[in-house]
């Protein structure tokens, strides 16, 4: 799927970030090629969430470069990044609980101005998740966990992304929902959208990913294809419960 000659969709070059004086990312390098599923594994506080925020532009790197399709985007605003094709499914979904399903989906297309395009994409999301069409006027907070997950995915798709960043898709969810989530990721990926999954549950993530990075204490501990990582003895001990 991914060829090395292609321009990477997203690239981190020696990115370092600080919160005050505390350094979180201590120089990390990632690349994501179009159409790939890449997972980022790591325990609590390894810098996963910060990576996520750095991709979205909510946190700005102190050093190093974030590149999007070969162009440095270190100082680009979040809205600009979304326009260029980055979307997110945040941890715990983070829907707007008092907004209706439609309104939540529309928030995903907030950066766009083409009413007809938005309407089209809305239809596309409904086709994708027929259940949401039934519930379109319902407040998001009243939906079941599985339906909320669909809204979160639908919301990300509304900006016509090239890359979806997925933060902890298994966090706090029942096994059935986790499975649904990973199936959704694969489904979305089959449409040609690259997915960057940040996950603690290494087994689940590696079972769908093409490649993976392992983060520990703000540094990359190891990286490789999913198959390589699954066989890595140290990883087995640390994350796979082996």
């Amino acid at each position, binding site marked *: 799927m991914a060829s090395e000659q292609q321009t990477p969709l997203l690239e981190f070059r020696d990115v370092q970030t600080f*919160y*005050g*004086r*505390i350094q*979180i990312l201590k120089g990390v390098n990632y690349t994501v090629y179009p159409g790939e599923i890449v997972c980022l594994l790591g325990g*609590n*506080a390894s810098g996963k*969430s*910060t990576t996520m925020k750095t991709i979205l532009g909510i946190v700005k790197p102190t050093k190093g470069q974030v590149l999007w399709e070969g162009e440095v985007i270190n100082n680009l605003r979040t809205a600009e990044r979304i326009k260029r094709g980055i979307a997110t499914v945040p941890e715990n979904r983070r829907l707007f609980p*008092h907004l209706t399903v439609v309104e939540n989906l529309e928030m995903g297309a907030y950066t766009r101005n083409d009413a007809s395009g938005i309407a089209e994409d809305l239809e596309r999301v409904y086709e994708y998740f027929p259940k949401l069409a039934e519930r379109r006027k319902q407040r998001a907070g009243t939906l079941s966990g599985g339906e909320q997950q669909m809204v979160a995915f639908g919301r990300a798709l509304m900006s016509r992304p090239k890359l979806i960043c997925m933060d902890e898709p298994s966090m706090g969810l029942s096994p059935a929902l986790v499975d649904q989530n990973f199936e959704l990721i694969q489904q979305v990926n089959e449409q040609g959208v690259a997915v960057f999954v940040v996950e603690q549950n290494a087994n689940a993530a590696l079972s769908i990913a093409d490649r993976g990075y392992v983060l520990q204490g703000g540094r990359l501990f190891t990286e490789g294809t999913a198959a390589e990582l699954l066989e890595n003895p140290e990883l087995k001990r640390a994350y796979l419960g082996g």
Partner: protein
Amino acid sequence: MTAKTMTRDGRSGLHDALSRLPGWVWWALAIVIAGVFPLLNVAGLVETAWLRVGVISLIFVMLSLGLNIVMGETGLLNLGYIAFFAFGAYTTALLSSPKFGLQWPFLAVLALSALVAMVAGFLISVPTLRLRGDYLAIVTLAFGEIVRLTITNLVPLTNGPNGITGIYPPALSSSADRGAGGLAAWLVIDKPVEYYYLVLVCVIVLAVLLTNLKNSRIGRAWNALREDELAAVSAGITASRAKMLAVVLSAGIAGFAGSLFAYYSNVISPESFLFMQSVIVVCMVVLGGMGSIPGVVIGAIVLQALPQIIRQAAGAARSDFEVYRMLIYGILIVVMVIFRPEGLIPDKIFRYESHEVDPRELERTRQSLFDLEEGEKDLEV
């Protein structure tokens, strides 16, 4: 130690040397200055007007020390604090003026004034202390205004806007003895210098008592509630009792100060108990440093005495002057909370609300807020 090592962090050697002086040196110095100041007046070097400024400043020091207990130590913003001052002042005025022809003994009136304010503090704290910080601030504001409007409207008791006049000076003896002259006359406090020393002694005693209290388990309980109520409660602190104690104690101090104020100024009227006065005391605590006893003392003196000095020097009219003064106070609060929230003289380790938060904590905070803080209202249509 050489001067070189002292200046290693780029500060001047003097500054560094000064900051190494133990705290009691500063206290002693302050007390000496405050104690000697009126002697200059006795010696004819300083006008009596300055002594009056001194007395009022010291009364405001007491008020600030009292407010600091709730605002600085316990973290409860009280915007109606001046109401307790009013309770003390009116209790004194009613018990020691021609209004009802009463002249109770000075010490009894002083104690009773503090007590009345404490009871008021208790009554208001019972239903309100469960409220969140910002709501509590507004409730106390409403309470302060209700008290003031009641004083203004309850003419038979308070003479309304005209106030109560002719409050007798504090006397340790009864009025009958005083007519006889001699020792009894000595026990009347009616000269500015005498008032000054009376209030100064009260302030010093109060500062010592409050410093002791601050460094006791009770002071720590207050601080813990200010820092994190949930954790404090989980560490065994009864929030309602500790907060109530803070409110009642601070009310008592305000009542006490109010009594001294009434005795000193001879006349009291609702004008002295406006919302603005509450804000002024808040301003003193913010400027000096919330939770810092020396800071609060300095804050009160700076904000009360300095404007008077400037006013006398500039010879400005009173009303104009008040406008500029309040304008500056308003701006001062904003500037302080933005740029130096810990105040001029911060409490020993106090760095109010300006932590560098470890993101590892941040990641978890949301979850925990979600767990425990219900009832946060979002915008709804």
